[in-house]
């Protein structure tokens, strides 16, 4: 599904990624773990197309296309979804408006007609149930005044609606209490299928107790220094980053 080869990237003059190789196939769940400053979030932002980062080397092929030539909105329309570590608050824009605009943008890109209001309500109600969110969230401004847990659940709600092919979850577990973490994890697991893939970016092993990855990669100083199966995360938990990196 996605093939990252020798990816190098910088913000301004500062190199952050120094040659990343990563292949994710349909149906797989990958986890990227690493200490603060290792480049985890940079990788997720580059995949999503953040304009502040410059790719200085390497390539990303996604479903046969050169991903780096596409602007962020077209990547999303092609099925890439980034769940933010810090979801952005947008006062004045209601959640329902954003959700509908996002779905319609994707439908237009697929050559489909825009969804009508009735069908949309039916659809979104089903998705709300998945993340145990009340309908009143639809009419509140996007993330404005939401608690940490509500913001993260709102990200999963958007993911559920847009049904991405590749979902990147950037530190989705941060700031979640155990109950909210379970709801988020259940939501993600139920959305996972043989046709899509999930890339989890996380600092702690905790999330991986609930969403079991097929592959775990450890990122340090802009490079993947070790890859393995889910047991690597357990090893990391006992030895710490320092123990693995040495």
């Amino acid at each position, binding site marked *: 599904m996605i093939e990252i080869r020798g990816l190098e990237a910088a913000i301004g003059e500062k190199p952050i990624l120094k040659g990343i190789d990563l292949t994710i196939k349909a149906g797989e769940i990958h986890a990227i773990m690493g200490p603060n400053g290792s480049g985890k979030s940079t990788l997720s932002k580059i995949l999503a197309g953040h304009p502040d980062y410059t790719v200085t080397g390497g390539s990303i092929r996604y479903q046969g296309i050169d991903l780096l030539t596409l602007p962020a*909105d077209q990547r999303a329309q092609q099925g890439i979804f980034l769940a933010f570590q810090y979801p952005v608050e947008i006062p004045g824009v209601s959640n329902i408006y954003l959700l509908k605009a996002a779905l319609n943008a994707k439908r237009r890109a697929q050559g489909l007609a825009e969804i009508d209001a009735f069908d949309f309500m039916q659809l979104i109600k089903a998705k709300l149930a998945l993340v145990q969110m009340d309908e009143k969230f639809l009419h509140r401004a996007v993330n404005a005044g939401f608690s940490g847990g509500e913001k993260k659940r709102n990200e999963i709600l958007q993911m559920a609606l847009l049904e991405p092919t590749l979902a990147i979850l950037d530190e989705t577990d941060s700031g979640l209490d155990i109950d909210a973490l379970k709801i988020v994890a259940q939501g993600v697991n139920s959305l996972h299928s043989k046709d899509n893939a999930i890339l989890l970016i996380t600092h702690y092993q905790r999330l991986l107790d609930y969403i079991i990855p097929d592959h775990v990669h450890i990122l340090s100083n802009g490079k993947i220094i070790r890859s393995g199966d889910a047991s690597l995360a357990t090893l990391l938990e006992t030895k710490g980053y320092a123990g693995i990196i040495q």
Partner: protein
Amino acid sequence: MKSNTADSFSYYRHLLTETALPGQEAAWLASLRQREFDRFLQNGFPSRKQEDWKYTSTAALANTAFEINLQTQPLDKNRYEKTNPFIRLEYHTMVFVNGIFNKTLSHLDNLPKGVVLKEIIQAILSNEISSEAQFENNAHRGKPSCHGFSTLNIALMQSGFYLAVPENCTIEKPIHVMYIACDTPYEAHLHNHIVMEKGSHAHLIEHYIGLDKMSYFNNVISDIFLKEEALLNHCKITAESEDAFHIATTRTTQGRSSTFKSYSFASGGKLIRSDTHTLLKEKESEALLQGVFIAKNQQHIDHHTYIEHASEHTRSREWYKGIAHDKGRGVFNGRVRVEKGAIGTSAEQRSNNLLLSREAEIDTKPELEIFNDDVRCAHGATVGYLDEEALFYCATRGIPLKEARFLLTFAFVKEVVDTLENPHLRSILMYIMQSVLEDQIQC
């Protein structure tokens, strides 16, 4: 023609003496006109050396000569109906075309008993306004709302409306006054006089709208008198043609426990100056001043507000939002004065501004003058660009940049529009702003 030169003075002298200004039968008015004109000769137009006019040059008005139109201007009924967004709601409607009252297009049949709503010169001729003392808003004399344009407004007053709402009367449906500009350039000195008696309630929409691409000049004064416990919801929509000049001052004098809710929405026009001055003269009176402006191309839109807390336990809240695009220029100047005896006052002011291009400019300035200690005042002003992170967030949801920019810009103004109580007015203003913004926002 209108700079402070002998030429401009003689031009206006010509207008005053040669134009058959209406209402000459009222001797007090003729004498007042002359005195106001003498004042104008003394002081001329405001210049940028005056603090209140620092950001706004009236020089653009200088070399344009307009005539005062005294003839009824025809306006096709179909065209009028398309122009009036409230037509189906059958509001109490007064229509002026190029500064002249158009009775045929107006709709004034169903006003509650005792309410007077008529053309101002007619109100003077029928003695509803029978003296200078009754006509003048004396509490504002000598204050910033008195300047060259306001003196000229009275000297050359040609029309406007008079609204008097009797004691404890509530007018359920809004009153909608439309000043439509079309076909021929003109200059109009419009004077509105609103008296809300004790305990009365009304909702007034002052609506300025230009239909054709042409230059003209509306010079407006709205004098508002709110008696004890009166409530006026006052919405001013300024949607002039792109080449128009619009200078307007709303001057309110508030009695005990009265409430003045003012909303000003401005877009269009080459130069718009729209001021709201309110005097919280008696205790427990309250003013809420809100506004949104969108300045694009090379437009200049300036809102000055002046709230005077002259009595105890008076409250004011202000929230203005501005958007400037292209080479548009916006100004918000919010002056609040709290007098010595005005204990227990609370005053709050917010001004948030959004720049959509690097060449756009918005100046925002709070001015607080506080002369006693028992006061709660807060103010905050921001000027910024669209939030890049919010744009990226929208992009990661598949929303194209152009749509995301529109979404965020629209959301920015919507916050203020959402505070309007009348749902029809809300949706019509949303529609107006949506069309102004959609037209403008490009990647």
